[in-house]
């Protein structure tokens, strides 16, 4: 990975509720994620993992409660420097090439020397030779690589990953685990949702289980860790 310049950033969720009509997606979620932690959210479908990540990315507003970001001892409410977000959907344009996609988002994020940054990331995700191919011609795994490259364009201090290994084959998942290890070791704060245990989940330093929108278990690596992840498969 390229050398990074970012301020380590933690996140604090305080009494977060998120309602869609009468349905609660999140109920009174309070969590403090320290800068540099690698947290995995586990839970059944509909347990609120995606909603929590989208609130952290500031793509969704909580119905009540606050999200604040802890940056170098300073607490800022609701103003996160843009997070790197990888969702189940690839969030890239099928009608553009891999390079055009990265250039587009690099220019929008006002990255200095966008072409060089796009080039470096294409190399890192192993798509340099397919840079001029339209994304619609890519396999699911290759699209996910473009998505990961897009998320890392602005050297984010916080990386949010919503089921990032969806569609990746064994080799792809292994590559992703390696990428994630680099991100974690570089001091980034990582929040990810996963279904069950995998090579990726073993990199987490903390596991949180959600059920019906509420936090029901929260543990650091240890005996309970595997049971929390296994629960997601239940």
């Amino acid at each position, binding site marked *: 990975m390229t050398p990074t310049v970012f301020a380590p950033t933690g996140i604090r969720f305080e009494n977060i509720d998120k309602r869609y009509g009468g349905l609660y997606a999140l109920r009174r979620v309070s969590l403090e994620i320290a800068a540099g932690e690698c947290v995995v959210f586990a839970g059944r479908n509909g347990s609120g993992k995606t909603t929590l990540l989208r609130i952290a990315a500031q793509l969704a507003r909580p119905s009540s409660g606050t999200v604040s970001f802890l940056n170098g001892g300073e607490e800022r409410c609701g103003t996160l420097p843009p997070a790197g977000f990888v*969702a189940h959907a690839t969030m890239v344009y099928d009608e*553009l090439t891999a390079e055009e996609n990265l250039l587009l988002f690099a220019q*929008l994020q006002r990255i200095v020397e966008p072409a060089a940054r796009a080039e470096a990331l294409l190399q890192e995700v192993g798509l340099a030779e397919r840079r001029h191919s339209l994304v619609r011609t890519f396999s699911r795994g290759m699209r996910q690589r473009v998505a990961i490259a897009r998320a890392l364009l602005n050297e984010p201090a916080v990386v949010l990953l919503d089921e990032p290994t969806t569609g990746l084959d064994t080799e792809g998942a292994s590559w992703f685990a390696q990428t994630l290890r680099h991100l974690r070791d570089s001091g980034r704060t990582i929040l990810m949702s996963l279904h069950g245990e995998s090579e990726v989940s073993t990199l987490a330093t903390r596991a949180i289980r959600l059920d019906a929108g509420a936090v029901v278990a929260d543990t650091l690596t240890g005996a309970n860790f595997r049971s929390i992840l296994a629960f997601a498969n239940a």
Partner: protein
Amino acid sequence: MALLSNTAVLLGKELRTEFRSRELLTTTVVFILTIVVLFSFTFDPSVSESRRFGPGLLWLAFLFAASLMLQPCFLREQNNDTLSALRLSVNDPFAIFLAKLAANTLFLLFTQILLLPVFSVLYNVPVLAAFPQLVLVMFMGSLGLSVTGTALSAISAQARMRELLLPLLLLPLLTPVLIASTEATAALLVPNPAMRWDWLGFLLAFDVVFLTALWLFGEYLLEE
């Protein structure tokens, strides 16, 4: 400055993706041609009737075409959730709207200019005498259609009955644009064409009001 540069980057993306897929332009041009040809065969108007009813028919066709063209404007951002990627990337979400409405205005204007000679031949109405003025009226009318349509497209894209919702919201709201554009066009298709600045001013006021509303409240339209 960031707003303008982001708008330019996004406009480039809109044009590139459209000219690669040609989905919107092809369907809209075919649709609008069909309507104008069908109107012509159905009514078989004389020259005086064409001058009287032609501008109205023309703008009705543009209006229907606009509702067709504007439908996928935000809908296709949902396929891969690219709208979220855009929201994460731009400081001011107004840039997303500005780029989309600029692209929609250009696409509409392009189809209108393409259609004008066909209209002239089928309805026996000369358009060359006041062509530059007609293009100005079409630009102002297209801008009105696009500003309103882009905003409503963002709203309807998140609704359950999105395919029905946009025309239902759009067509009544665009009645003032339809009237003003028709009147301004009609004044340019008579033997002694004259620019109706009053109707053009009305279009300008409509565009400014809706653009301001979009600038003030656009951010909320993109929220989940």
